[in-house]
């Protein structure tokens, strides 16, 4: 297809070490040469552009300010296949949706660096008068167009690109004035690729993180962000947090200072609040331990990432609750969906409505916290025990190197992600929802969770199996995939009793 997807591995052996200046310079040159628009990237000009942006359009600053003000910001997803459609979308999300952070989701060809296919997609979209691509082809349109998009809104812009290959997209977007980039080597490689090795994914994001650190060195505080939601399919908090900690350590090693952590909502109020608190604390704990003392790690929750119901009314409840959960959990931002979720990419209007529903829900729950509630404390302890067991084992396997440890741990199944499409990930760990509505682990696969922890999971899941008269096992996992998409009449039958 296009130019090769990964930097020449002979350049450096895999490790967490910061990419040296000279090597990085060479890598950048090669990277920017892979598609014509790469030539538009002018680092000096990009630094000047960022420095000229007002603070409220710089995501690094905005996230810190939100933390200071105890605000929960809103951010949707969204991208269309042509510049005009996409610009209209961004403006609608900003103005009608009151989005605090405006997104640019790239299309799946761009994510796979299939820029020729993306080009065809642009043309077909223009011909059809509707988007044939599921996102905005950032690389094809290039730096100047990216800058026009950033100028069209009055908020910070973030790139959402679900890819293991962020190097050119990231260069172009950041050069255009985007101040945030979502993606990481461990999370996206295990959730968005099949044949891509985890080491390669890590390398690609080391490049991006190194780039951000270079901006940082020139006084530009860009925001990087880790997608701990992974496959979005009943991912238990501890698994999300394990990847958050490891990706975060990798980024910090490249010099990143603003690193957001995302988790999909479990949809259980107490579990989500515990997860946010645990994520924040554990990332900082491991950062400190490894000598990174100045990394800001705000936590973001995401509206339900699994399958959605086909009823707008049920979806509205999921959207609103998504705001409630994020606000009460103390998340610094929430990534929103819309009532169209089960059907397809939402219209700008439906997307903006999802934002306003969420924002109202945040307002309503703005001052509530669960700290001190026993169930919260118990859940948080449980998550912490799970995370420490896996992270410590991983670090041990890497002989102190996070990158090496990660690759080896995935090979051994010590690190694992449920429902992963990747060949490099065993996907033997199996989650399901318990009777109280928390996500639990049916089968840990080869992940070394402490025995007492697994007993708790099993007991809670057995209670559900019993209640529903199904065997304890994988069936629970499959029905949990469908659960939130079921019609309400099945979830909560009416006629509470017969005679």
């Amino acid at each position: 297809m296009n130019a090769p997807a990964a930097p020449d591995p002979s350049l450096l052996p895999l490790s967490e070490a910061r990419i040296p200046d000279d090597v990085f310079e060479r890598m950048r040159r090669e990277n920017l040469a892979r598609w014509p628009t790469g030539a538009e990237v002018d680092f000096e000009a990009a630094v000047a552009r960022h420095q000229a942006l007002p603070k409220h359009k710089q995501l690094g600053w905005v996230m810190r300010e939100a933390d200071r003000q105890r605000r929960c910001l809103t951010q949707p997803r969204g991208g269309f296949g042509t510049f005009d459609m996409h610009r209209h979308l961004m403006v609608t999300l900003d103005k009608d949706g009151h989005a605090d952070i405006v997104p640019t989701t790239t299309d799946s060809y761009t994510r796979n660096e299939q820029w020729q296919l993306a080009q065809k997609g642009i043309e077909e979209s223009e011909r059809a008068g509707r988007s044939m691509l599921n996102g905005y082809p950032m690389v094809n349109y290039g730096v100047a167009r990216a800058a026009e998009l950033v100028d069209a809104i009055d908020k910070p812009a973030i790139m959402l690109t679900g890819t293991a290959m962020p190097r050119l997209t990231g260069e172009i977007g950041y050069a255009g004035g985007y101040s945030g980039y979502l993606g990481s080597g461990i999370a996206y490689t295990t959730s968005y690729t099949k044949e891509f090795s985890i080491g390669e994914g890590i390398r690609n994001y080391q490049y991006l993180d190194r780039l951000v650190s270079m901006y940082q060195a020139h006084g530009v505080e860009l925001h990087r962000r880790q997608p701990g939601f992974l496959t979005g399919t009943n991912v238990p908090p501890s698994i999300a947090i394990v990847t958050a900690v490891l990706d975060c350590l990798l980024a910090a090693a490249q010099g990143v200072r603003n690193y957001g952590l995302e988790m999909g909502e479990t949809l259980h109020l107490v579990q989500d609040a515990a997860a946010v608190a645990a994520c924040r604390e554990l990332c900082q704990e491991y950062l400190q331990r490894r000598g990174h003392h100045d990394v800001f790690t705000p936590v973001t929750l995401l509206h339900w990432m699994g399958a959605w119901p086909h009823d707008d009314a049920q979806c509205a409840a999921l959207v609103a609750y998504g705001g409630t959960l994020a606000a009460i959990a103390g998340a610094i931002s929430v990534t929103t969906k819309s009532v169209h979720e089960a059907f397809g990419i939402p219209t700008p209007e439906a997307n903006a409505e999802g934002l306003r529903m969420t924002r109202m829900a945040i307002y309503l729950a703005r001052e509530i916290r669960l700290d001190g509630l026993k169930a919260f404390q118990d859940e948080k302890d449980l998550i912490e025990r799970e995370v420490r067991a896996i992270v410590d084992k991983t670090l041990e396997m890497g002989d102190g190197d996070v990158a090496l440890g990660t690759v080896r741990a995935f090979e051994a199944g010590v690190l694992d992600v449920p429902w992963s499409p990747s060949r490099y990930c065993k996907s033997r760990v199996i989650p399901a929802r318990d009777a109280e509505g928390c996500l639990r682990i049916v089968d840990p696969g080869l992940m070394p969770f402490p025995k007492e922890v697994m007993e708790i999971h099993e007991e809670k899941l057995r209670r559900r199996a019993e209640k529903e008269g199904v065997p304890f096992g994988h069936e629970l996992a499959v029905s949990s995939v469908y659960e939130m998409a079921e019609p309400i009449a099945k979830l909560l039958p009416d006629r509470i009793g017969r005679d």
Partner: protein
Amino acid sequence: MKQKTVVTGVIGSDTHIVGNRILSMALEKAGYTTIALGALTPAPDFVKAAVETNADAILVSSLYGQGELDCRGFRDLCVEAGLENILLYVGGNLVVGKRSWEETQRTYLAMGFDRAAPPGTRVETVLDWLERDLAARERGERRATA
């Protein structure tokens, strides 16, 4: 009756594996020899696998919206490979955005798929279609009615 063989996978640059995996597991359990190609499968790989295994049907998943681009010419690929009559299904979120199902279905049937499944289709439905269509094939029909 010999055991039927089906090829499954998610087409194009699409990573949505969950529904496809559940479907594949259900097919296996229902007694089909199931060749599961997984996520991110190029169109020619489906056809190659079907030829190699002498498959009775190909079940293509597409969730991410770009299926309309990825699936163009899929039937032609089959024909070129000598699979004129292989049963072809497609399912998932087949277009970008929330469009009328009738329109979407028409688009895919016109591409040469025998059936298209709307968002949210359950495995029971797919198993039922398959059983009836394969039986219809035995009787020399293109597919079962409805």
